[in-house]
């Protein structure tokens, strides 16, 4: 029971990590960044390359990876999305295509297997009660909490963060107050991409780094965002806990191969009772239903 609790929490935090950048970028700029999975793997790959080709220390390559991925997100918005702003479907297709282009390119380059592997931060583990947990997973937990707190402070108490929320709530009013929506939108996508890189660096050490993982990340990010309500960060956290615990419970009592059912069932269930997601607030009914 204790292990269910611990591993459920860890799985939930991992899911929240997946969905964080996606949900944030959507909440601000209204762009559903389907390149999220691609940027996730790209972030991990950049960090790996700097560590292995240039033999840079871990911290430096991680920092470079986060910044670079953020810049790629910025360019993606500024170079491509800005030209088709306001046509949501074209936005979806372009980000989707860009993400797949990244993933398939990396897959073609041969990005699979144990050769590509990010190092864990601290080796070893600890026993909580009678459950063995390795340090990496605990660090993921801690970082998740810190990151969530940081984001909350950032969005509520800094100028850029408030501008983000202003754009999200009402773009025209924000414009009239001198908040430039193009700039903020590009920044939001940059932040979302940087968060994708951060989560890649946190989570990839626990598994292998493969191009196919990118699709997994995208699926879970989208599933969590749909269940939680796209615009709401809190909804995203709640949804990742529901799906995370659901998955661990199913893996425990039914069989681990049935884990994929959980997001599907959660989506179907939520759509049937509350199509705008658990805590979807803005633009609630007219746009969606």
């Amino acid at each position, binding site marked *: 029971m204790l292990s269910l609790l611990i591993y459920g929490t860890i799985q939930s935090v991992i899911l929240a990590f997946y969905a964080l950048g996606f949900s944030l970028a959507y909440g601000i700029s209204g762009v*559903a960044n*389907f390149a999220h999975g691609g940027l996730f793997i790209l972030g991990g790959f950049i960090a790996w390359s700097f560590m292995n080709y240039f033999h840079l220390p871990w911290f430096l390559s991680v920092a470079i990876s986060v910044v670079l991925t953020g810049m790629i997100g910025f360019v993606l918005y500024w170079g*491509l999305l800005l*030209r*088709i702003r306001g046509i*949501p*479907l*074209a*936005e*979806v*297709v*372009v980000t*989707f*295509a*860009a993400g*797949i*282009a990244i993933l*398939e*390119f990396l*897959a*073609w380059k041969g990005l699979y297997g144990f050769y590509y592997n990010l190092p864990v931060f601290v080796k070893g583990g600890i026993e909580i009660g009678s459950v063995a947990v390795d340090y990496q997973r605990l660090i993921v937990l801690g970082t998740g909490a810190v990151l969530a707190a940081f984001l909350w402070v950032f969005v509520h108490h800094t100028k850029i963060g408030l501008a983000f929320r202003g754009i999200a709530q009402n773009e025209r009013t924000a414009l009239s107050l001198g908040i430039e929506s193009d700039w903020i939108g590009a920044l939001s996508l940059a932040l979302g991409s940087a968060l994708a890189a951060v989560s890649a660096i946190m989570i990839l050490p626990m598994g292998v780094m493969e191009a196919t993982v990118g*699709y997994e990340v995208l*699926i879970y990010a*989208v*599933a969590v*965002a*749909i269940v939680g309500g*796209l615009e709401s960060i809190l909804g995203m956290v709640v949804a990742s806990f529901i799906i995370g615990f659901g998955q661990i419970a199913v893996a425990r009592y039914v069989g681990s*191969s*049935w*884990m*994929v*059912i959980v*997001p*599907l069932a959660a*989506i*179907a269930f939520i*759509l*049937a009772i509350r*199509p705008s997601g658990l805590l979807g607030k803005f633009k609630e009914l007219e*746009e*969606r*239903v």
Partner: protein
Amino acid sequence: MAEAGLRYRKERLDRGIKARSDTIYVISSYREILYLVLPRVLPVIGLLVLPLVLRGYWGKVLVYACIFGLLALSWDFLASCGMFSLGQALFFGVGSFFAGALNHYFHWPPILTLPIATLAGGVFCAALLAPVVRLKGIYFAMITLVVPLLFTRLVVATGVWGGSHGLSNLAPFTNEWIPIYLAVVAMLVVLFGFRRIMNEDYGLVLGAIRDDDRAVMSAGINIYWRKIQALFIAAVVGCFAGAFMTHQYQFVGPSVFALDYSILPLTAAALGGAGTFAGAVLGSLALVPLSEAMRALAGLRITFYCIVLIICIIGLPEGIFHYIQRKYQQFERLTEIG
């Protein structure tokens, strides 16, 4: 030209022959009749003659192009009803698995499995997506993106229908002419059928749902039921493509839910021009041979599609077909400003 650009602007006018032939009620002249008929008849004749010319490998490519044409048509039909799908692979995969399972477990011949898989698959997909028709735009797109990808994992994880190995040794088509003409004729029928549907009252309602669903609701029409019907129609076409390819490959596995079957039809429709159906066909007839020619690039092909797709959407948003149509029906001239 720069100075000319300041004083002149381009103006587009319908050609005289277009204006005259728009309202033909009686046979007026061969020229006008040919103007109307040729663009419709020539491609049909061309497509019917091609299988006689193309044998062996390139014949297979033609079949492939027609199948992707069907998927692109199905995508375009959904898009004209305001449902933007990122998961044509769902239809394709469901059709494939229905046909594959019927053939593998009951040993039914293709002549039975094709229609059954097409209809049953259509009903299954429409029922599966029925709760989702309440969603619009990117919400619908997200669901359709996720569902086939989860299905892949479901098949692999639970091992139903052969699991990750798939079902092999399925019954092939008996005669080499059957598949090639079946694919070509199916694509032509669907192409002209869809164009006809969208011009009927039924299609007007579907188009109106895309443009303003609130207005359609206030006209007392149940838009959800209409959308489910549209889903069924599109799913039938997609499932036929899947069931067909199952017998063509004599194999079905979880790869039928792969992203290729979602992204290629989308690219074809975007390249050819969405909303006209002919554009979708044109796009896939152009893209599939191109991708066959690039088979050497293997995995890079999808990257290539994606780049084409991005360029098309940003640089050439109207698509090839709209461009050709405009040139055919209108001429441009410079007129003085002011």
